[in-house]
């Protein structure tokens, strides 16, 4: 069967057209067609912006990897410094691979290829979900340090929590997205705090960040496809508003969720990732 590609903003099923249409159906059909044209225009803008952003975000870590490797190869660094840089190189490559994986997830979400209900989930101790990510992506900690951002991980709060139903690749992607956003938008001198919490039949990871102010009216919209709040659009870092949308799709595919609670003082936001606790 031929693969059916749907555009980024057209995930809703379009009903098949019938043979006979009433006047009102025709009107609806015309309005729908007009709205689809408008959607297509938004779509192509979103597609192009997404491609531009992905290209930029891939080039940045890969050119950094190349430059570090050339420095090492040409003998600009001591053995000890080389080892340190190689560790960074591994981190940059991991980021690039995760980004490519995000594109893959996006493709699956907009095509009919990925059936997320069939995804392999396994029962793992909750503490390993977050700490595994931190161990592998120490580059984010370096990126935070470059911007004067501290990272405080409350490991004790996670150790006491029950095991969860986890789809590893997806969880890594969701956590990476929050770290990505923190690296882009957190204010210099602020602290990213991460802690775990138990709920009824669920386990949560809270991410507190001090970054851009999210108005109460936008707290759900930031998970819409292509949505970027006005506050974020004025900031330097690039983005297409797809990361949080993909994150929500992935978490829901494993019966979890992700949501945001804007803080009372401007910019103190809490993101919560929810996993279903294993029985």
């Amino acid at each position, binding site marked *: 069967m031929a693969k059916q590609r749907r555009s980024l903003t057209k995930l809703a099923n379009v009903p098949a057209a019938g043979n006979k249409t009433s006047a009102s159906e025709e009107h609806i059909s015309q309005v729908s067609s007009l709205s689809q044209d408008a959607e297509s225009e938004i779509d192509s803008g979103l597609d192009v*912006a997404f491609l*531009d*952003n992905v*290209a*930029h975000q891939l*080039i*940045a*870590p890969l*050119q*950094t990897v*190349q*430059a*570090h490797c*050339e*420095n090492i190869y040409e003998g*600009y*660094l001591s053995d000890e*410094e080389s080892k340190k*840089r190689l560790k*960074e190189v591994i981190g940059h490559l991991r980021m690039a691979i995760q980004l490519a994986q995000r594109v893959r997830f996006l493709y699956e979400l907009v095509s009919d290829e990925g059936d997320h209900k069939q995804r392999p989930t396994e029962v793992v101790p909750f503490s390993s979900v977050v700490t595994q990510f931190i161990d592998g992506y120490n*580059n984010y900690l*370096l*990126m935070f340090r*470059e*911007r004067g951002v501290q990272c405080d991980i409350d490991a004790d709060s996670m150790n006491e929590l029950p095991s969860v139903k986890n789809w590893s690749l997806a969880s890594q992607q969701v956590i990476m997205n929050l770290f990505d956003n923190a690296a882009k938008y957190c204010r210099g001198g602020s602290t990213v705090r991460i802690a775990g919490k138990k709920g009824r039949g669920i386990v949560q990871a809270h991410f507190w960040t001090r970054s851009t102010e999210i108005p109460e009216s936008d707290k759900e919209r930031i998970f819409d496809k292509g949505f970027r709040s006005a506050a974020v659009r004025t900031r*330097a*870092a*690039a*983005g297409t508003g797809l990361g949080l949308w993909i994150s929500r799709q992935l978490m829901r595919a494993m019966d979890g969720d992700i949501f945001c609670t804007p803080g009372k003082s401007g910019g103190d936001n809490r993101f919560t990732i929810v996993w279903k606790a294993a029985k």
Partner: protein
Amino acid sequence: MRILVLDDEPWSVSWIRDFVKPLGGEVELVETFDQAVSACKNGVPDIAVIDVMIGQSSVPFQGATLANAEEQWQGLKFLRHLRVELRASKKTTEIIVYSVLDRGDLADLVVRAYQGHFRTKGDVSQFRKLLGSLLREKTS
């Protein structure tokens, strides 16, 4: 030898520090236009390495006039400031402008308006070669 690097993704240019250190260079890394301007208060740098596209995600460049581009692109805005500082101080700064965009019109603008060199982010080897040769010229 003082090298001012303006980039809002400082981790992506950290390799410059390693590269210039054995050649006698010292890097001052700044992320914003304001930080770059205040770095010049201590004197203009010997070499300025500037990312054009800081400050916004993707403002189209096509058909932009110089004044327009300098207003919209923070990297170019800083170059305008640097040009004024250089005239006042009668010193010379070697300028490398780089961007993820690989555009002839942007490269022409950099050469024409700022007498600078243009490199794309994807061409790291050429970027390193240029930086190395400018450093060596400056120190010889």
